[in-house]
């Protein structure tokens, strides 16, 4: 007892319970002066007991009284100590009589659950009603276990949840002690303490969670180590003992049963250069306490070569190394991947960098030095080393974009220009990723750079080219468009709107079929197909623009090839040739007039001669009225002269045909020649050029006779002009049928046409005649006419004399009716 009283505030619950159980009930009730009256009757000795004591010990009464007084004094002292202990512990005490459920609660117990003294009844239900529903069953079971029989002991300690006045549950440590039992062994008085352990429980819960996390972390670490192939080792320098973790054994392809690790045994597995490095590093660690981090090559116990990383940290005691610890990591696969990546990155010219925004340090890999044309030894490793390379034009933008990336406003993905020492200005593409801490502050930035100078220049060239092309296309006199290999429009110039009334948005992506009316598309489809198959297509056609303007256009479809060498679409250039056509018509007319004028002098002469005959003969008719023979002769002369004139006029009519009538009929080539012969003879006669006609075929050609006669007159007339001043003057016109074509050759006594002239013969306005004598349009127009007739004209290069050859398509027999 005395020892308990000395402890005061350090009193444990067990001490308290021992004290309570030792106390006489009356004394206890007296000390707990707040205990209500009903309890007193149980706490006071019964009258009979007192009587028995008085009766049995009368002689000793005085002594007893004295002893009693002494005992009470001692009890008071004990109770005083107990109160100190209880106050110090802050625990509540209860005293329960199971027989009637009467329970006494201490002030501390009442205050622990937030009540005032006097608010609670002295009943066990004040306790039991506060139990957490989940705890009621097992708490009662536990209490019953110790109260119903002494076999299970007299004490019990358990924790449960318990509701306070505010309705919150407290965690309670309940210590129970059965202090009295009846004859059946059942508890007749039970006392106990309640300790509020809510805070401890919360701490325990937190601790448990932390432990769980640590356990999981350890598991993760272990599995990570296995996955990452990271082992550990420890060298106890005092005990001269080397320890390996399980993963270190696995990396060495061995086990603790098979291999006893020692420093010397471990070193022997390293390749020579690695062994040298690790030996030196170990020596330094053991003697000077310097740690290391090495990348080495070693063999496993099975003889397999692997790459490893090994680190070492030194534990110093009194500044002397006592223990080395470190990791041992298999980085074979990592090294292989790094080598591969390095190979790929080098091949792609990709440089990698790491920037620490906190201390502004900058790390570059080898490719970066090449990219920036800086020697590694000249590189300061500071952010400014990069900034200094930027050109004035790029600087502000690049720095701003880096800042935006740091602030998390946008990804770092830019192109900047740098000055280099030996390679001039280069364009560099930069991309980077910012790593942040949990507060969002940037801690590190990783990135890559590539030299995109060529791409940039090409890009600029393409842009310039595209602008030029658009400028040219938009300023072409007609629309320009481009379709892909599927016939979909991928480009249209501005003029398209003027011509077709559609904006690029309405056209792009669509096909001709979608844009053209069905009639127009049917006409255009064959040409579109030809162009899509890679054939250049030129054709002329009338066209009415969206504004109602009537035009004559030339449409040029120029195919282009894709990278696979196959046709990849075509460009269409529409030329407005309305003015050209009008001018051409005028020129043709003028040319005809010129030819006509040239011939008119001769023709007039030829007409005036027979007119003179008519006139002269007519004036003599009266004179020979009575001379029938003479009269008849004059009449005949007149008739013949008239016939001559009508022939000439007939030829002239044909020659002066307007050409607007494009009536095609089947004509015999010899018939056409006969028709123009009179006109030709007028000229040839005048120039004393012998004309010889050799028609060996009656084959027919499908033609506009007026146009073909114009061609023939022009050709023969040219031949006459060419030879008229030569000593030998003849023109031979011959036709034959070679089975496929009807061939007409105009050969003259000239000695041919020089090659340089031959090439230009059919060009408009080219003439070899003296100024004023030829328009230079005759052969050009003739060729145009023959082209329309699908006939060809050429100069035979191997003929001893000048020879023009025209080849007409022969009319098939079935059509030559």
């Amino acid at each position, binding site marked *: 007892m005395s020892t308990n009283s000395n402890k005061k505030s350090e009193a444990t619950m067990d001490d308290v319970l021992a004290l309570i159980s030792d106390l006489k009930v009356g004394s206890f009730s007296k000390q707990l002066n707040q205990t209500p009256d009903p309890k007193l009757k149980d706490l006071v000795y019964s009258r009979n007991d007192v009587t028995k004591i008085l009766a049995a010990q009368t002689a000793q009464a005085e002594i007893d009284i004295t002893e009693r007084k002494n005992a009470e004094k001692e009890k008071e002292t004990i109770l005083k100590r107990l109160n100190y202990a209880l106050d110090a512990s802050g625990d509540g005490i209860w005293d329960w009589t199971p027989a009637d459920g009467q329970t006494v609660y201490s002030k501390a117990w009442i205050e622990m659950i937030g009540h005032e003294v006097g608010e609670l009844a002295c009943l066990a239900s004040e306790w039991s009603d506060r139990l957490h529903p989940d705890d009621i069953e097992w708490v009662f079971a536990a209490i019953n276990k110790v109260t119903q029989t002494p076999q299970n002991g007299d004490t019990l300690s358990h924790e449960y949840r318990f509701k306070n006045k505010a309705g919150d549950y407290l965690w309670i440590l309940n210590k129970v002690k059965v202090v009295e039992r009846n004859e059946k062994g059942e508890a007749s008085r039970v006392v106990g303490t309640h300790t509020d352990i809510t805070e401890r429980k919360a701490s325990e819960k937190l601790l448990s969670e932390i432990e769980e996390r640590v356990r999981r972390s350890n598991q993760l670490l272990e599995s990570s180590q296995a996955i990452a192939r990271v082992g550990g080792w420890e060298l106890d320098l005092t005990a001269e003992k080397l320890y390996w973790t399980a993963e270190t054994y696995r990396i060495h392809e061995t086990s603790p049963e098979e291999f006893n690790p020692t420093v010397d045994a471990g070193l022997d597995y390293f390749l020579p250069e690695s062994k040298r490095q690790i030996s030196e590093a170990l020596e330094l660690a053991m003697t000077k306490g310097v740690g290391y981090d090495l990348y080495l090559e070693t063999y496993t116990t099975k003889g397999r070569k692997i790459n490893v990383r090994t680190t070492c940290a030194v534990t110093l005691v009194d500044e002397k190394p006592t223990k080395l610890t470190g990791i041992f990591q298999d980085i074979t696969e990592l090294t292989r991947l790094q080598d591969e990546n390095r190979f790929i990155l080098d091949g792609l010219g990709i440089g990698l960098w790491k920037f620490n925004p906190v201390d502004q340090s900058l790390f570059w890999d080898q490719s970066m030095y090449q990219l920036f044309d800086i020697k590694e030894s000249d590189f300061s490793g500071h952010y400014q080393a990069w900034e200094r390379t930027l050109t004035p034009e790029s600087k502000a933008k690049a720095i701003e974009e880096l800042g935006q990336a740091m602030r998390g406003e946008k990804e770092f993905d830019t192109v900047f220009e740098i000055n280099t020492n030996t390679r001039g200005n280069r364009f560099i593409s930069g991309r980077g990723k910012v790593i942040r801490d949990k507060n969002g502050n940037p801690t590190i930035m990783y990135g890559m750079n590539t030299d995109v100078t060529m791409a940039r220049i090409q890009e600029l060239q393409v842009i310039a080219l595209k602008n030029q092309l658009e400028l040219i296309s938009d300023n072409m006199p007609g629309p320009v468009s481009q379709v892909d290999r599927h016939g979909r429009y991928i480009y249209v110039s501005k003029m398209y709107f003027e011509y077709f009334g559609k904006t690029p948005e309405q056209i792009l992506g669509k096909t001709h079929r979608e844009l053209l009316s069905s009639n127009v598309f049917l006409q255009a489809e064959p040409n579109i197909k030809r162009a899509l198959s890679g054939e250049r297509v030129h054709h002329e056609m009338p066209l009415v623009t969206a504004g109602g303007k009537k035009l004559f256009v030339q449409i040029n479809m120029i195919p282009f090839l894709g990278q696979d060498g196959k046709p990849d679409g075509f460009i269409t250039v529409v030329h407005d040739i309305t003015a050209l056509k009008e001018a051409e018509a005028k020129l043709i007319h003028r040319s005809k007039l010129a030819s006509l004028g040239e011939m008119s002098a001769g023709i*007039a*002469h030829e007409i005036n001669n027979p007119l003179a*005959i008519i*006139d*002269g*003969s007519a004036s003599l008719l009266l004179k020979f009225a009575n001379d029938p023979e003479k009269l008849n*002769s004059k009449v005949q*002369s007149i008739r013949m002269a008239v016939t001559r004139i009508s022939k000439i006029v007939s030829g002239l009519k044909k020659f002066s045909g307007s050409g607007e009538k494009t009536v095609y009929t089947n004509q015999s080539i010899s018939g056409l020649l006969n028709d123009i012969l009179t006109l030709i003879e007028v000229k040839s006669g005048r120039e004393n050029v012998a004309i010889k006609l050799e028609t060996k075929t009656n084959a027919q050609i499908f033609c506009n006779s007026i146009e073909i006669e114009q061609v023939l007159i022009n050709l023969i007339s040219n031949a006459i002009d060419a030879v008229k001043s030569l000593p030998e003057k003849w023109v031979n016109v011959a036709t034959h049928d070679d089975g496929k074509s009807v061939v007409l050759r105009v050969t003259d006594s000239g000695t041919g046409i020089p090659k340089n002239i031959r090439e230009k013969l059919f060009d408009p306005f080219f003439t070899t005649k003296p100024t004023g004598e030829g328009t230079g349009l005759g052969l050009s127009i003739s060729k145009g006419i023959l082209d329309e007739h699908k006939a060809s004209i050429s100069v035979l290069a191997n003929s001893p004399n000048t020879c023009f050859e025209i080849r007409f398509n022969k009319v098939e027999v079935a059509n030559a009716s």
Partner: protein
Amino acid sequence: MQVKIFFLDDEPDLCEIFLDEFSSEVIQVSAFTDPKVAIAEVFSCPPDVIFIDYRLPNTTGDLVANNLPPHIPKYLVTGDSLVSAPKGFEAVLAKPIDMEKIWNIIKGLQMKKKSA
């Protein structure tokens, strides 16, 4: 006094018309279709006047005239309206021939001969 006239034209019908129109007791007309024959005849028997067609076989009227004595009056007859009077010719007479003009020329010659 007889007037001697030469006519050179490659049209036989025109030669015949010339003969029919102007031949008389006082007018001796000789017509030629071949220039060479005509030239030869001019020198053997010079005419008072010669009418020469411009376009002749292998030659022209002005070339023929160059080969004739200059004192013989020469008239160029042509159906070609573009031909103007070359040197050595009195005048150009267009076809169809205005016979009145030739008659006037002949009358003029007759008057000249009478007065001489």
